[in-house]
């Protein structure tokens, strides 16, 4: 569970997150909003990467503060939007380092792990991270983050994903969705992304933010209203259709 109370955070003179109040229970939550709405900033604040100007954030009972990073790293995992790589580590070395395991232990882990299988990581294990394609890089880092909060390895209670679908092909996207729904039964997951149709299809809670403020919090993402889509996301009316089941969909994306 994540509790955000009265959080303010100034990014620049023009833009700030203001007076955010949120309680996020276990389950998969979609964090939606147009570009520059403050999605990444909010995730940075929850993860402890940035310090709040005012207010407080609690993950379970742990105060989020850049001062207790070590303790925080055990209770949450966070996939950054952009990955930097300057050294030619192999994917395997990356996993060994982040999970603090030895080569043999990682071999054993990779043999039968659901995440490694689901993301088809086996052929990538001995490739260097600087030589991977965009989608492959995303898969490797996703595996790193998911393994970090896989319950049998490290029972973390919170998973933050910033645009995890970027670069993934359809099959891996599908697998990721299924895996996250499963994982969401025990931990809190927040996914920031732009796949509105996906959110409109799934009956999962969602948080819509716009211009640094919370626009609305819905317990079922299928309830996103037509006016919200038009106002917040600036969509033309013609782009919206309603399916036979009464679900809104955006055509042309």
């Amino acid at each position, binding site marked *: 569970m994540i509790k955000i109370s009265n959080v303010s955070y100034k990014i620049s003179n023009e833009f700030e997150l203001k007076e955010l109040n949120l309680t996020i229970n276990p389950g998969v939550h979609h964090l939606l909003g147009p570009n520059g709405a403050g999605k990444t900033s909010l995730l940075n604040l929850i993860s402890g990467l940035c310090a709040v100007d005012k207010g407080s954030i609690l993950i379970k009972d742990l105060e989020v503060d850049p001062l207790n990073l070590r303790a925080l790293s055990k209770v949450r995992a966070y996939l950054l939007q952009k990955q*930097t790589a*300057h050294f030619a580590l192999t994917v395997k070395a990356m996993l060994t380092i982040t999970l603090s395991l030895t080569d*043999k232990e990682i071999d054993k882990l990779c043999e039968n792990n659901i995440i490694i299988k689901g993301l088809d990581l086996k052929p990538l294990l001995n490739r260097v991270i600087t030589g991977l394609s965009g989608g492959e890089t995303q898969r490797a880092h996703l595996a790193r983050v998911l393994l970090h909060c896989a319950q049998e390895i490290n029972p973390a209670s919170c998973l933050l994903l910033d645009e995890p679908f970027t670069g993934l092909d359809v099959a891996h996207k599908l697998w990721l969705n299924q895996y996250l729904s499963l994982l969401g039964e025990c931990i809190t997951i927040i996914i920031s992304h732009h796949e509105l149709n996906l959110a409109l299809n799934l009956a999962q809670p969602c948080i819509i933010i716009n211009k640094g403020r919370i626009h609305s919090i819905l317990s079922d993402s299928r309830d996103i209203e037509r006016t919200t889509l038009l106002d917040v996301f600036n969509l033309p009316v013609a782009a919206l259709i309603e399916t036979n089941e009464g679900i809104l969909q955006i055509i042309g994306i």
Partner: protein
Amino acid sequence: MLVNNRNIYIALFWLILVTTFATYYGGVSSSSINPFALTEIQSVIIYELRLPKIFTAILVGACLTLSGHLFQILLSNPLAEPGLLGVSSFSSLFIILGAALFSFLNIRYDVFFLILSASLGAFLAVTIIFQLAKILGQYSSSALILSGISLTTFISALTSWLIFYSENDQLRTFNLWLLGSFEHVTYAQLLFISLVALICIVIAMYKSNDLNLLYLGDQNANLYGVKVNRLRKYMLIIASALAACAVALGGVIAFIGLLVPHATRMKFGHDNRFILPILIINGATCMIIIEWISRTSMYLQLPLGLVTATIGGPFFLLILFKHFKNQGL
């Protein structure tokens, strides 16, 4: 674990082999010595002339290699190296200035002060490079290297002026620090500097897990619980101290700090928990070989900087080509 231990033993085996070889075999121009039939004069040659140089080579190689490796990780730049960043030249300049100051004040220039002035210079260089890179653009790879190059240029100009105005006697001392040489190293100096180096090495090994996470970038390391800014600050002090140790012993020796870490990482992987000891041993082995070449290949002693630059230049180009092909090392 087992496999990695074996790698360390193999590296150690090579180190011992090369050490023995360099001690007794004279190569083209100097005399070879049979270890089982030492005459009195030969044992003097070994204990007074060759062994101090070989021990110095071991220490300098280990210091430079570890220092280069640390700089590369801390500045997230695979091309960083104490020689390239101007750290070595800055600390050698400080040694010369320190010598001038001490002779002016008529105080004995002790090994402690030697290290102190070298470290001061190294640390100042790192600080300047960091400030420049910060102004130029967020500590980016190119900003760091460019500020390093500008600093090196500035220092070389300064040293050129010093040489221009120096007397013959002083010139020889300058040359020693600029081109690298293991002459005049005493056992006392070796002992003191090896103590400093040992402390630095132990600290670096103790922090190897945190250093590992820096491979994934500052933000990710932060997320895994590393206080990146603090780690960077302290480890940069360690890396500068190591570079200073090397400069205090043998002057500016370029490229070892770049080539050995690269070759080692390519062969043995990136995990600091395992490669730090291998790195140190390999650095020592390489330095002994270079020292041996400089001592034996011609009728007079070649400057070490000359040997490393001759071998290092082409090798550096090779790494550059590989770097641009794979977008990273």
